[in-house]
C-alpha cells in the first residue's frame, strides 16, 4: 500500500527535516505517527498526501512510484488518499454538506448522485442536523467530524490524519479515535499523527516515532 525508502527532505537550503526515513504500511493497517514538536510529522504527512516532493528517496503508493509521477497525474492519486488536518481546512463559504461533498464534486460527480451518500455519512458522524450550517457556526468537534467526513466520503484507500484530536476535549478525542478505528475496521489504511499518547491505549497499533529527522518503530 505505502512504502517509503530512504526519504530525505529540507525546505530550501535549510537543514534536513527528514533524513533517510523508511517504513511500510500494509493495506488495512493502522499506525500512529508521533514525536516531539518540530520533528517533521507534518512534513512527512505532506509528502504522503503529495503536497511536497522528497529531496531524495522513493515513495511507492498504490504500487506506483509517486516521486516520479508528473504533476498532471497527481489528482487521481490524491483522490485515493483522504486527509484530516488539525485546523480542519473547511471552506467557510460552503455548507457542511458542500464541504463534505467536495471530493465527489471535484471528481465530476453530480449532486443528485452523491446527495444521499453525503447525508448518510453526515448522519454517521452525527452532523445530519448541521448539513446546511456553515463552518463558522460549528463547534470545534463538529468541524473536526465534518473534516473527517470530507476525508472519507470518496472512500479513500489511505487516510492520513494530522493531529485530528489536537483541538478537541479528551472526551471528543476518544470519540474521534473510535471513528478512525471504525473506518480502519471497514478497510481503510490509517496513519494517525498525534502527540496524545493516551490515544495509543485505545487502539493497539504500531507507533512510528519521529525524532531529529529519523524514524523508528516503537
Amino acid at each position, binding site marked *: 500500500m505505502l512504502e517509503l525508502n530512504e526519504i530525505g527532505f529540507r525546505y530550501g537550503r535549510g537543514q534536513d527535516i527528514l533524513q533517510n526515513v523508511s517504513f511500510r504500511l500494509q493495506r488495512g493497517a493502522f499506525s500512529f505517527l508521533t514525536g516531539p514538536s518540530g520533528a517533521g510529522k507534518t512534513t512527512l504527512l505532506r509528502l504522503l498526501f503529495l503536497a511536497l516532493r522528497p529531496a531524495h528517496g522513493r515513495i511507492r503508493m498504490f504500487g506506483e512510484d509517486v516521486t516520479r509521477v508528473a504533476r498532471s497525474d497527481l489528482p*487521481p492519486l490524491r483522490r485515493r488518499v483522504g486527509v484530516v488536518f488539525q485546523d480542519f481546512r473547511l*471552506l467557510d*463559504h460552503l455548507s457542511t454538506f458542500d464541504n463534505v461533498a467536495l471530493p465527489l464534486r471535484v471528481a465530476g460527480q453530480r449532486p443528485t448522485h452523491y*446527495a444521499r451518500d453525503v447525508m448518510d455519512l453526515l448522519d454517521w458522524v452525527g452532523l445530519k442536523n448541521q448539513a446546511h450550517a456553515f463552518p463558522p457556526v460549528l463547534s470545534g468537534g463538529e468541524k473536526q467530524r465534518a473534516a473527517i467526513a470530507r476525508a472519507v466520503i470518496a472512500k479513500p484507500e489511505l487516510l492520513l490524519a494530522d493531529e485530528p484530536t489536537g483541538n478537541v476535549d479528551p472526551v471528543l478525542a476518544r470519540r474521534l479515535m473510535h471513528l478512525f478505528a471504525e473506518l480502519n475496521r471497514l478497510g481503510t489504511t490509517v496513519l494517525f499523527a498525534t502527540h496524545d499518547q493516551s490515544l495509543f491505549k485505545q487502539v493497539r497499533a504500531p507507533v512510528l516515532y519521529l525524532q531529529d529527522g529519523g524514524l523508528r518503530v516503537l
Partner: protein
Amino acid sequence: MTRSTAQRSGLIIPKEAASLSTLTATMAVMCYLACLAIGALILINRAVDSWAQGLSEEVTVQVREMETRDIDMDVAAILARLQETPGIDGAEDIGRKAAAKLLEPWLGTEGLDGLPVPRLLRVRVNREMPPDFELLAQELSAVTPAASLDTHRRWEAQLTRMAGTLTALSLLILVLISASAVAMVIFATRAVLDANRTTVDVLHLVGAEDSFVGRAINRRFLATGLWAGGLGAVLALLTFFVAGHAGLPQADGLSAASRSLFYLPETGWWLTPLFLLAVPLVATLLALITSRVTLLRMLRSLT
C-alpha cells in the same frame, strides 16, 4: 431533502471572494473606448467610399482662354467630342460664373470679371466601362491645345492615403485597448487566485484537477466580460445617439457623423449596433481566455 440539498450546491469560488468590480468598471471604460474607435472606423470607411465613388464617377476638363482662340467655340468642340466618346455618360459646362465662384476663396469677389478664368466641364464617367483617360486627354488636346483633362487621381490617392492612416490609427487604438484589457485581466486573475489560495489548496488536496479550479474561477470572468462589454457598448450607442441628436451648432460635424452611423438605409441601420455589440463578445472571450491561460500557468507553478 436530497433533491433540495443538491440544488443548493454553493459556488466553489463565491462572488464576494472574487470581487471583480474594479476590473468590471475599467473594462467597461475600455469597451466604451473600443466602441468609439469602431464607430470612427466605420465612419472613415463610409466617408472614403462615398468620396472615392464621387471622384471616380466624374472627371473635369479645363479649357483655358488663349489669345488666338475663341473659348466658347473650344468649349462647344470639346463638349461635342466628349458626347461621342464611349464610356462618357454626359458632360456639361458649369459656366463662367460657377467657375469664377470657385476662385473666390483665393482671389475674392472683386476684379474677377477681367481675369481669364478657365471654363470647367463636368464629365460623368460610366463606372462599368470607363474610357481610356490617356487617350482621351490626347484627343481633347488635338481638338484644342487649350483643353486639359483632370481625372482627380491625385486627390483620390491622397484621400486613400489619409483614410488608410486613419484606419491604421483606429486599429492601433483597438490593439492598445485590447492589450490594456489583457494586462488588467492578468492582474485581476492573480489577485483572485491570491485571495483564494486556501480554497485552491483545499481543492488540490481533495484531488481537483487544474481545469476544475480554472473553471471555478473562470465563471467570474465570464460575468465580468459580459457586463463590462455590454455596458461599454450600450454607453457608446447612447453617446452616438445623443451626439447625433444634440443639435449643438459647435458640433455640427460630430452630429452629422454620429447620425450617419445609424441612418444608412441602403446598408441597413442594424449594421452599426451589430458591430458595436461584437465588443461584449470579444471582451468576454478576451477575459475568459486570458484569465484561463494565466490561471493554468499559475496553478502549474503551485505544488
